[in-house]
């Protein structure tokens, strides 16, 4: 036995035992639903299966509206000031029948946003959140400049997912 231990193939076999153990576990559980529930498979079959995200996940910045469909933001400019990469630009304005100031422009340059959530934290009116979207790649640079008007510039809905994603094929 001690002679066997001096041979390198012995070490390879020792390594293969560990691999083999896992291979067996996965192989015999892969297509059986019952066993599968017990053994946790770590690999997620993204993009066929949607990813599980944690509730606190930090995705893209989104403006919120209240129940009446009014934009909740009141232009206190706290988010603009706290943003470390200075990607938020707000223009204050007035709207008929609204006491609080109204953002005429709320521009968000996503290409430089670092998803730190400082803006959401600073907002005392709960008028912005980071949504759970992470598939944010796009082909054109303009797609990253978000604002309040236009189809492509939608601060209220999630960004359109890139057209050539594997999930669609």
């Amino acid at each position, binding site marked *: 036995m001690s002679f066997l231990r001096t041979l390198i193939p012995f*070490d390879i076999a*020792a*390594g293969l035992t560990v691999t083999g153990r896992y291979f067996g576990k996965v192989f015999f559980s892969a297509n059986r639903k019952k066993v599968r529930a017990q053994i946790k498979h770590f690999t997620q079959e993204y993009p066929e299966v949607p990813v599980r995200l944690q509730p*606190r*996940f930090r995705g893209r910045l989104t403006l919120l509206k209240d129940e009446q469909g009014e934009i909740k933001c009141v232009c206190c400019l706290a988010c603009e000031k*706290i943003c*470390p990469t200075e990607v938020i630009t707000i223009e204050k304005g007035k709207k008929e029948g609204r006491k609080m100031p109204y953002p005429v422009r709320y521009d968000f340059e996503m290409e430089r946003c*670092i998803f730190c*959530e400082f803006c959401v934290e600073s907002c005392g009116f709960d008028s912005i959140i980071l949504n759970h979207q992470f598939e944010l790649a796009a082909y054109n640079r303009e797609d990253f400049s978000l604002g309040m008007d236009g189809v492509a510039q939608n601060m209220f809905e999630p960004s359109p997912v890139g057209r050539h994603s594997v999930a669609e094929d």
Partner: protein
Amino acid sequence: MFKNEEMEINLGPQHPSTHGVLRVKLRLDGETVTKCTPVIGYLHRGVEKICENKTYFQGQVWTDRLDYVAAISNNLGWAEGVEKLFGIEVPRRAKYIRTLLTEQNRLASHLLWLATHALDIGAMTVFLYAFREREYLLDLFEAFCGARLTTTAFRIGGLREDLPPGFIKDAQVFQDRFLHCLYEYEELLTENRIWKKRTVGVAKLNAEDCIALGVTGPVLRAAGVPYDIRKAFPNAAYAEMDFEIPTRTEADTYARYLVRLAEMRQSHRIIQQCLDGLPEGPVMAKIPKILRSEVNEIYHPIEAPKGELGYYFVSEKGGTMPYRMHVRAPSFVNLQALPKMIEGRLLADVIAAIGTLDVVLGEIDR
């Protein structure tokens, strides 16, 4: 007929084993390295300068991007450094949670090191197993702060939010599994003769050289010097924790491997103590909305997974931003030991030496 010539080659900056964009200029005599010059700067972003133009609150996001493998450790150094500058006392619960997350981050960092180091040397299997455990830890970070790598986990004065519901349970599940996983890595590597042949006696750096070059972290401890900031200058809640500093005396790559594995066991112990003894209470201290500094200057070191990570702040009167900020990055200082380790050795050992130093280029180039 045959000319005996030395040849100069580049290793990197796009070499997969240099862990980023490290370029090493090597002068070779056959397969023996006669001269080695690391060339850095490919990832320079001017973090120190940027931080001088950002408030103390904002600056933390750049620390994520230094050592991106251990972002929470960097956040801890920044937050505690600023707290020291302003004399803010953090609630005890926040300190415990900080310690807990930092230790989990140390595990994540060491697991990544183990995975890539073993892969560089040729042991493929460990790579996937170590990544599996790291994945679980990253999910925990995501549950706590919403991001996996660029965490921005702490705030000046404590934490933004308490632990999410279910966090302690999930962390405990990991705790129960992890020792078995460690045992598995050891089964694969520790007594493996191929692994030993690639690591024993390779890239030696004795204690005198370590100290002369300012090397810290596991590399120093593998040379037999029991220096650990967590014990020497306890920060966060480390003073209340019961743990040991693993050391070895062989000072080679294999010893560093053993030290890091032993450190993972100690981290596991610390996490368990944090989970068991988590005190109740608030997680955020009362701090003014805008921090205005006096003329002051502080240096705050913490034990990052790679060694001593220090933040140096110089503040001016009434300033909301640091006048000068400097990072003493462990990888940067440790990298200068590379020529000492490999000159006169074989080319294949260079890969092992870079791996065992555990450098992260985001931290070196800043």
